[in-house]
């Protein structure tokens, strides 16, 4: 009984700790382990190769392209989404019927499941019968594109535009959530600070980036972390729409890991990918915190 009382905290935590240990820590450690072997699960042969698979994959241009795709996607998504959300939130920071309707409309994509969103966009972006090309044609945008030498926008079907199309879909899905977070942040900035700034002769633009943005920094930082980590997890869209194509241009880490391990039966390479992904995300998060956390102002 005494043991229980003096170790109560630990004992209460034990179930959760056990869960974390078994389902998170152990698999991660085991992945590390597998990545140093060449393991054929079907025949059962397991040979130790040290960094062999690492060397092989890091020398494979297709694998490097997957990493590049993922990083490019991540940067674009985060930059575009947060920037757009910032301007949208500034615009929506008033109350009127139009603005309230707009807020609802913008947030709706966040509620819809990713698969539905993805399937929908697949059809919208169809070069022949999709809504996007139809509207662009009606608005004459296609003639504008022709000036750049683009005959027809192939969206998801061409290796030059496929990743861009994914970014569009991703931004569309996450814009609402980001906007709302920033909107809430903006509304918690006391109005009198802006009045003080007005008296300090600050123009609207200066008010925006000297006051609004810095005071929004906790929200911005939060969105940065959340967007970065979630963009690294992109899987459904790739799996349902393109399976990494065309020509590997939309293949992203999580999809590559899944496909290599479970469709191509190369579990060792898959583990190498997992380990590298862990390192990349860890590095990204660490640098975010190190570089930016002292720029974040908490009130």
């Amino acid at each position: 009984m005494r043991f229980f009382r003096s170790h109560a905290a630990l004992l209460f935590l034990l179930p959760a700790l056990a869960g974390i240990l078994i389902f998170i820590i152990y698999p991660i450690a085991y992945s590390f382990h597998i990545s140093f072997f060449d393991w054929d699960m079907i025949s059962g042969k397991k040979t130790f190769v040290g960094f062999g698979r690492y060397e092989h994959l890091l020398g494979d241009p297709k694998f490097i392209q997957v990493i590049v795709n993922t990083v490019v996607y991540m940067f674009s998504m985060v930059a575009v989404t947060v920037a757009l959300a910032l301007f949208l939130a500034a615009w929506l920071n008033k109350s009127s019927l139009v603005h309230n309707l707009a807020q609802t409309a913008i947030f709706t994509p966040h509620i819809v499941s990713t698969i539905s969103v993805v399937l929908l966009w697949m059809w919208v972006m169809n070069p022949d019968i999709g809504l996007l090309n139809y509207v662009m044609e009606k608005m004459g945008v296609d003639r504008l594109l022709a000036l750049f030498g683009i005959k027809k926008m192939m969206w998801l079907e061409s290796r030059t535009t496929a990743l861009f199309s994914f970014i569009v879909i991703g931004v569309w899905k996450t814009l609402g959530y980001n906007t709302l977070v920033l909107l809430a942040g903006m509304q918690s900035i006391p109005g009198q600070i802006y009045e003080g700034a007005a008296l300090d002769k600050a123009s609207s633009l200066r008010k925006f980036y000297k006051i609004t943005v810095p005071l929004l920094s906790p929200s911005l930082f939060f969105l940065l972390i959340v967007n970065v980590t979630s963009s690294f997890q992109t899987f459904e869209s790739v799996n349902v729409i393109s399976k990494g194509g065309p020509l590997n241009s939309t293949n992203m880490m999580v999809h590559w890991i899944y496909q290599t391990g479970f469709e191509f039966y190369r579990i060792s390479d898959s583990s190498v990918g997992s380990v590298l992904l862990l390192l990349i995300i860890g590095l990204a998060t660490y640098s975010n915190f190190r570089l930016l956390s002292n720029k974040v102002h908490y009130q």
Partner: protein
Amino acid sequence: MKKLVCSLGLLVACLLFFAACDNSRDPAPAAGSTGSTTTPAAPAASPSAATPAAGAARPFEITFWTALTGKNAEALQELVDKYNSSQDKIRVQAVSQGNYWENGTKLQAALVSDTYPVMTMLEVSQVGEFGLRGALADLAPYFTAVERARFVDGLVKQGVMDGKFVAVPYNRSTPILFYNKDMLRAAGLDESGPKTWDELRSFSQKISDPPRNIYGFECPVDIWFIQAGIFQQNGSVFTSDMRRTAFQLEAGVKLVAFWQDMVKEGSMKAPLGQDYNSWDVAMDDLVTQKVAMIFSSTADLTGLIEATDGHFALAAAFLPAGEKRASPTGGAFLTVFDKSSDEQKAAAVDFIKFLTRADNDAQFSKATGYLPVVKDALDEPVLKELYARHPQYQVAYDQLQYTQDIPPIVGFREMSIIIQEELKAAMVDTSVTPRQALDNAARQVQNLIK
């Protein structure tokens, strides 16, 4: 801070230690990997089987992992139930794992954790993956020569590896040409369809009307149809020793040039979308009469007949000939794991023989649209009547005399994807020359050949 780092370090070290300990628990390589065909070595007992007591009061249970869903799964289950109720010595427990790929994933994990089933359904490429790694049992000892001769030649070839009979054909299919008779007739063309590549092209040119979005021919850029095209031009996908790629040679160039030219002139449409999405697009276009001729699988025949009933006359024909006729096969086989016990293997074979009995195979073929795998199934009244009513089924069967397939190779799925991607890109952007596309693909595929 130092304390924290130390304890974390200790934790990680412990975990890695435990993970490393796992090494010793790996099962010894399966006895079949080097190829003992006669007496199977002492196998690890499969936990999924009940106590082996032949002839005892309780029936011997074996597990069967399938990869069918929907109506096809129901058709199979009917036969499983029929088997189970027809005798009380063996009981088969059939469990659907989803589609071929999901099944494959689960099998991979199951093999490592010793929870694998006795028998399973494997898609053609998977037969190579699993068979070449020695996971599948050689069933030759269980079949007499007469029994083996029952199987349709064209369908059973891919189940034999290194002289071992590792896979029994079951739900097999082959690509055929589907076409809209009415559209052909309206264009003043021979209603029995194009017989050669040249005819395919000329027919398409006559029918196509791109401004109105009508095309003569549509074909998904899938490895199946790519193989077919290469074989039809007397080429092959790999060299005979399976060590080097061969699809980038003349035959491949001819195929890609043919398709590209047709796309450029507007007589062919290459459907967009990944994997089976593009097949759906092609079939949709056929049904809505936006295209006159498509390539698709016999497994789609039943569905297409239903969809086009009353709208137009749907016909089927052999794939047009290049320098010769050729068509690959697809679908899946029944296999038994080598790690299973002798008792389990015997039981599984008994069930397989039941499934491939003429009447049962005919029943399954009719219900699903897959090809009959044994020759005597064609004598069954159900199939006779079906073929009389819908001669399209006969076409698929008759084409089996021209089957040609790629021998099994490890990593085939990954290679198929590479080839498909490169050729699809050439269809979308026709400024890419056939040689460029094929050479790109060949380079990458060559790197994968171990």
